[in-house]
């Protein structure tokens, strides 16, 4: 109780002091008031410099984070595509049988090497949770490669246990791909969160700018009324600068975030969809080989083919409809899907040899040729078309982020300079009035 009484007493004392000072200010002489207004305005202008720098820096950092996350997303998706592409080559090589063609082997090796190198880069740009997941992907990739090698070694000796190794490799690849998809999803969230932060970052600049503007307007009005001067030129110029900072600065700031947003909504979204289509496409091609390896009993893998193909179709259609990207790949995938239907109808009708021939090398059969079915050629057309689109969209997205970043780099110095200039002008403006009292 005694403590409460003491606290209440202290508060009452502080309030009384504040009231006394305010009354004293009201009764203070004009030079004192002028000095006080000058200090307040100069401090507000300096605050604008600091808040502007902070605001732009936060936005720049957020856009930078979004750019890095976007780059990471493209990187992780590339690893996924490399892995499913390698698996597709391994499955098709096994289906063909015999000694694996040297160029196919080289292609498989280069995909695995690219996936491993891509993983190293991706780990560096990952959050700690994602890095753990990517480490597990890296370990599984090593296991996958080992299993494929075992399958090959057995196949070369004519040992059917190679098929069991191939199945295991496929199962590992499937787990590995799921892990990569998890990382992709969390990276997409990072892009979205960074962009949301970039959007929120302007408020400090707006508040500081308005504070300075209010200080200048009130100050100018006070000078005009008290000293009967129509315009205090330095304060008026300072006001114009504040308005310029708020409009031009926020405009540039807004354009930077808008440019980054456009990159996310446009090329990055398109690249994301095309990469998903590519990964699902190669997965479908693997499933096609597996339906034939399981001669006449590939129903489970055909279900997998259908699921993957539905992902390809949906991703490409969304990309084509929303961004005008991947429309060519839609057509080439449709052609491949038709060819795949021909493979399935041959296998289902018991004509396994012709189905395999068609799936792996295109058919020499006149009837099949007449139908225009050629799965390897059609799939290659899809692979090339989607790859070109992916590279173009990824590059455009990356360029847009770089541009956004460059704009903000200049802007932050302009806002700091403007704040200092406003402080100097405020000082000059009030100093002129003070000089009249010396």
């Amino acid at each position: 109780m005694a403590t409460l009484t003491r606290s209440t007493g202290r508060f009452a004392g502080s309030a009384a002091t504040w009231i006394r000072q305010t009354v004293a200010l009201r009764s203070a002489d004009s030079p004192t008031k002028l000095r006080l207004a000058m200090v307040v305005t100069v401090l507000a202008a300096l605050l604008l410099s600091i808040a502007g720098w902070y605001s732009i820096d936060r936005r720049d950092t957020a856009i930078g984070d979004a750019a890095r996350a976007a780059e990471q997303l493209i990187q992780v998706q590339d690893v996924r595509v490399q892995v499913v592409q390698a698996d597709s080559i391994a499955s098709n090589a096994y289906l063909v049988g015999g000694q694996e063609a040297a160029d196919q082997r080289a292609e498989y090796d280069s995909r695995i090497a690219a996936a491993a190198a891509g993983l190293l880069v991706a780990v560096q740009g990952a959050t700690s949770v994602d890095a753990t997941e990517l480490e597990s992907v890296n370990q599984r990739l090593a296991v996958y490669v080992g299993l494929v090698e075992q399958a090959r070694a057995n196949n070369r000796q004519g040992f059917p246990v190679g098929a069991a190794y191939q199945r295991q490799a496929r199962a590992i690849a499937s787990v590995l791909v799921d892990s990569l998809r998890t990382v992709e999803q969390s990276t997409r969230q990072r892009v979205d969160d960074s962009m949301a932060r970039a959007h929120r970052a302007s408020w400090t600049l707006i508040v500081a700018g308005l504070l300075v503007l209010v200080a200048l307007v009130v100050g100018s009005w006070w000078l005009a009324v008290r000293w009967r001067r129509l315009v205090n030129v330095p304060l008026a110029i300072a006001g114009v600068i504040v308005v310029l900072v708020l409009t031009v600065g926020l405009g540039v700031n807004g354009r930077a975030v808008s440019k980054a947003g456009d990159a996310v909504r446009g090329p990055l979204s398109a690249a994301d969809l095309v990469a998903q289509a590519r990964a699902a496409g190669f997965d479908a091609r693997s499933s096609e080989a597996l339906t034939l390896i399981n001669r006449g009993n590939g129903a489970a893998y055909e279900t997998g083919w259908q699921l993957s193909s539905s992902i390809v179709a949906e991703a490409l259609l969304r990309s084509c409809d929303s961004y005008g990207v991947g429309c060519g790949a839609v057509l080439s995938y449709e052609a491949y899907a038709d060819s795949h239907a021909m493979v399935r109808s041959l296998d289902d009708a018991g004509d396994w040899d012709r189905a395999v021939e068609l799936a792996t090398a295109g058919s020499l059969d006149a009837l099949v040729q007449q139908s225009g079915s050629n799965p390897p050629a059609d799939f290659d057309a899809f692979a090339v078309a989607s790859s070109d689109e992916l590279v173009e969209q990824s590059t455009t997205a990356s360029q847009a982020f770089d541009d956004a970043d460059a704009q903000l780099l200049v802007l932050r110095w302009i806002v700091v300079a403007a704040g200092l200039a406003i402080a100097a002008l405020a000082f000059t403006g009030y100093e002129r009035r003070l000089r009249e009292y010396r």
Partner: protein
Amino acid sequence: MNARTRGRRWPAAVCALGMVVGAACSGDATLPDEVAGSIAEATTTPTTAAPACPDPSAYASMTYEPLEVLPEPGDMPDGTTMAEIQDRGQLVVGVSADTLLFGSRNPLNGDIEGFDIDVLKTVARAIFGDGGEERIVYKVITYAQRLPSLEAGDVDIVAHTMTINCNRWLRIAFSSVYYQAGQKVLVKDKERFPDVFALRDAGARVCAPEGSTNIDEISKAEYAGVIVVPKPDISDCLVAMQQGQADATTGDDTVLAGFAAQDPSTELVGDAFTQEPYGLGMNLDDSDLVQFVNAVLDQARADGTLEQIARTWLVDTGALDAEDVPPVPEPDYTRALP
């Protein structure tokens, strides 16, 4: 639609305002959701619970009388299952593609070959005549798919190192026995595990294929102590041994001989502890086909074809010594027609 996609659809005008204010489009620059994909029609195979065999001790190898007179190839009697197959122009069979010596895919040329396949070719020639083996449509099935594929009518005949037993006779029909196999164990360490009982006493991990009689046998109380490692297919058991997930594999001696040929560090040990009479499986309703196949097998026994097939796949490949190959089993035709 969730927040991510909703954000994407904000009108452009609001974002234009955002260029000035710099904050109005908060949260609108989002990436599209991951594409999940879908399958228009989910196809699931209903699983049938295995009925219990009322009298497991009944002699399972009993089958129907063979046809008295084997029809001429290419001239199957009207209204029979054989005529249906002949008209279709295809004999659809369920086989293994990874059981070396009995039914395996030759990785070098993609052909499926082995003991079971040659028996099927004999049946195909009896239906279609010379070149009948070209009319065979192979469906590669797992151990667990053998009975369901016959019940569903997906295949006409299953030749998949399949043991004839009472429980299976409740669901499918069998031909006469064409090979007498026995269950053994394949180990990596012959000194430590000289037979199945040593595996039991050591509490070793023994792999067996799901849905096989082998896994039923090794799970019996007699072998309690063994840790059973089930795998979808028996070739996965060899992989499991090579990867150190299992100390041994149990299966038919025929199949395990194929494994030993693929991995010299493994060895077949001990005596066979079961009798595994192999028969061709057919649909329970196709008793006429069973009778036809029995007549074909009778002929193959008589003219030495079955013996020759056994020699080709078990002796010529070096898997077994000639004296270890069991004699061609005698048929038992005492099962009454349904």
